[in-house]
């Protein structure tokens, strides 16, 4: 009973302590919620659980992963933006810029406190193994000749993060992307099925997502939209090797909090995540699943988020989504 009274007393005092700085200094005093806007068992979830386990070890408080997968993730990242900025709710942020233009909320870099980026997966262009197309140049040439000649899978709704990255390359090559035949699907796996079944000619998706089908010899990857070749797939050429100045693009994952997170909390978390990122265990686990490793600290991440928003706007404007 005594301990209970004591605890109740502490709680009252804690609530009474109005200064957020005082709170932040002792952070974390209770379990932290980590919002993951994706289903349990998926890629985003897996990386989040890796981080959560290590954060729990570092801070000595549970970091509870909460999956909020509905609506392709919009519900989860909206909840993250609206959470109380007390440091007890953080989450995984990924390509969020399109939602605003599709009429879902008003999420911008101002909605979040960037903490640290730990992953980047480049988009890639795949064809069926027995396709006549051999290189990315041939895809571009065919589309320049006749924009309706090929069906292009988005591996999600159109425009998706993958198709947007490819769109950027196409726009730079002077192709009107609204004239193309974009085909949506329910996620990357369904898109791969459609590619192999002959429903689409070209598919945009990341290399890790397509790894099983690549292994199976069912598909070929023409190009990956990255600066350099991937360590895990050194045989796949980059888009830049085939087309001068092809823009890299893809999906990032980062730890973020709601806007206005106390600076002490941000610093503590950023340091911890950098430490985890440098660790061998994390590097091995990420490589095993084929996830691209890329670290950006809080300031670099903010810069990247602004680039991401600008790129998204360019593509969606060319697509006619933004009038």
């Amino acid at each position, binding site marked *: 009973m005594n301990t209970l009274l004591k605890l109740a007393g502490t709680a009252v005092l804690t609530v009474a302590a109005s200064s957020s700085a005082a709170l932040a200094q002792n952070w974390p005093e209770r379990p932290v919620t980590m919002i993951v806007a994706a*289903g*349990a*068992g*998926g*890629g985003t*979830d*897996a990386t989040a*659980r890796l981080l959560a*386990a290590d954060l729990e070890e570092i801070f000595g408080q549970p970091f509870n*992963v*909460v*999956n*909020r*997968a*509905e*609506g*392709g993730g*919009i*519900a989860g990242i*909206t909840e993250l933006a609206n959470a109380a900025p007390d440091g007890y709710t953080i989450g995984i942020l990924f390509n969020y810029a*399109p939602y605003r233009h*599709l*009429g*879902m*909320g008003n999420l911008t870099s101002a909605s979040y406190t960037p903490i640290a980026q730990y992953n980047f997966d480049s988009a890639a262009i795949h064809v069926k193994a027995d396709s006549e197309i051999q290189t990315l140049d041939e895809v571009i040439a065919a589309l320049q000749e006749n924009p*309706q000649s090929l*069906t292009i899978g988005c591996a*999600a*709704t*159109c*425009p*998706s993060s993958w198709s947007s990255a490819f769109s950027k390359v196409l726009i730079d090559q002077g192709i009107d992307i609204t004239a193309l*035949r*974009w*085909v*949506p*699907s*329910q996620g990357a*796996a*369904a898109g*791969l*099925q*459609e590619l*192999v*079944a*002959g*429903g*689409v000619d070209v598919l945009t998706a990341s290399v890790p997502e397509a*790894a*099983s*089908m690549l*292994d*199976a*010899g*069912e598909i070929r990857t023409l190009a990956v939209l990255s600066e350099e070749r991937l360590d895990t797939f050194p045989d796949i050429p980059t888009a830049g090797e085939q087309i001068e100045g092809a823009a890299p693009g893809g999906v990032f994952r980062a730890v973020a909090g709601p806007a206005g997170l106390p600076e002490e909390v941000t610093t503590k978390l950023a340091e911890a995540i950098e430490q985890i990122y440098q660790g061998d265990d994390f590097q091995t*686990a990420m490589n*095993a*699943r*084929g996830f691209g490793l890329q670290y950006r600290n809080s300031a670099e991440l903010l810069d990247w988020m602004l680039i991401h928003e600008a790129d998204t706007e360019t593509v969606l404007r060319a697509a006619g989504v933004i009038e």
Partner: protein
Amino acid sequence: MEVIGPALLSLMAPDVLLAVLLASMFGLFVGSVPGLTATMAVALLVPVTFFMAPLAAIAAIVSASAMAIFAGDIPGTLLRIPGTPASAAYTDAAHRLTKQGKAELVLGTCLVTSALGGLIGALVLIFGAPAIARVALNISAFEYFWFVCLGLTSAAFISPGSPLKGVISLLLGLFIATVGIFPVTGQPRFTFGRTELIGGVALVPALIGMFAVAEILRYAISTEPAAQRTTARIGNVFKGLIPALWPYKRSIGTGVIVGTGTGILPGAGADIAAWISYALARKFTREPKKFDEGSLEGIASAGAANNASVSSSYIPATVLGIPGDSMTAIVIGVLFMKGLTPGPTIFTAQPTLVYGIFLSFILANLLMLPLGYGAIKLSRYILDVRREILMPIIMLFCIVGAFAMDNTLTGVVVMLIFGVIGWFMEENGFPVAPALLGLVLGRLLEETFLTSMIIAQGNLLVFFSRPIAGTAGVITILVWLSPLAMMAWRRSRFTG
């Protein structure tokens, strides 16, 4: 097949066996609580599997999912509240027999046919996986579209009563499925600007509402004195089962085939398998009158189908890395997490592991017989609890289950609304089953149709241009036209 020996040995390791046993009991519990589904059982296991060896982790998931699909039948039979969506198709039929004092026979049927379906599905998995997966790769949006149409057709056969009211119920379900994100462009639709609606109306809370909340409401306003509870003890559920089921061997066979086939198709899972096999059993039964008054035939067929589909859904998942349903999507994630890439190479690189996983289906489905028997024995105590105490407790479980599906209160709101709608529909002779089927298949129907139209550039003939799609399309249209043809034939016979 020389790999079977070592695979069996690796499965017999103590840590694997312990994981299978614990996960089985967990699956039985989760499946039998209304509001907790098999998918949730698997999702909730994910954090735990992080600390397990690959085989133990996947074998645990396999056992939990198989057990949960069976256990969903228990509350469906005893309380008319299905434990998982896969049991919804035959909940009414099962409960009807319970009211006639045959709960023991129904639960025995569910248990035995579940294990049988799961075992046959597992054999198909072990001996046919790579070859079948190759065939499944030819399925594109066109084929899917026709399969979905055939699936919707079964709505017409599911429920007794007015066919027109069944169609209205189906249309309402299809409409509700359009709320959320438009699957082509990702724009929100019919969401009234609310973030909560962008994810659409979730199936599980809707199902809990239409069955559980509607049942609680019916109890709350029931003016008849509490029916004398059938105090028939649940004894040996296996007794007299074989003679009771033997006449239905054809329907059970159909159920296994439909279930195995549905499991192989990506995007279709145990619930769809159960709906379709139940509809087929009702359509082709030799005793149509008995079927609606209380017969084991549909229950046996659908009970076998849903467990068969759990087994066969691992074919595309392991061979090609393509998830057949939300459960195998999680399995693929766990495989990746363990540094294993699903695909043909996993068969050459890790044959012992892959066949160990396949054999764990056999183990789980054999284990289902004794464990399921125990679960049925325990569950009879539910019948001893007074209804006025049981119903509020079920309501509490439902609230938490509806919440836990997406960790949001929206689920509880959906549950309440669908509870009232479900109760009103039943009062007015509208069957709720077609609405749920429409909700399950609606998004798939729209997506496959629009994707096909985009690929075909609006040319409807392309829907018939591929061999499998063409065949499926012609069959679908023949099924749709058959009632008209029958009418014309009868008329010509009477007048001619």
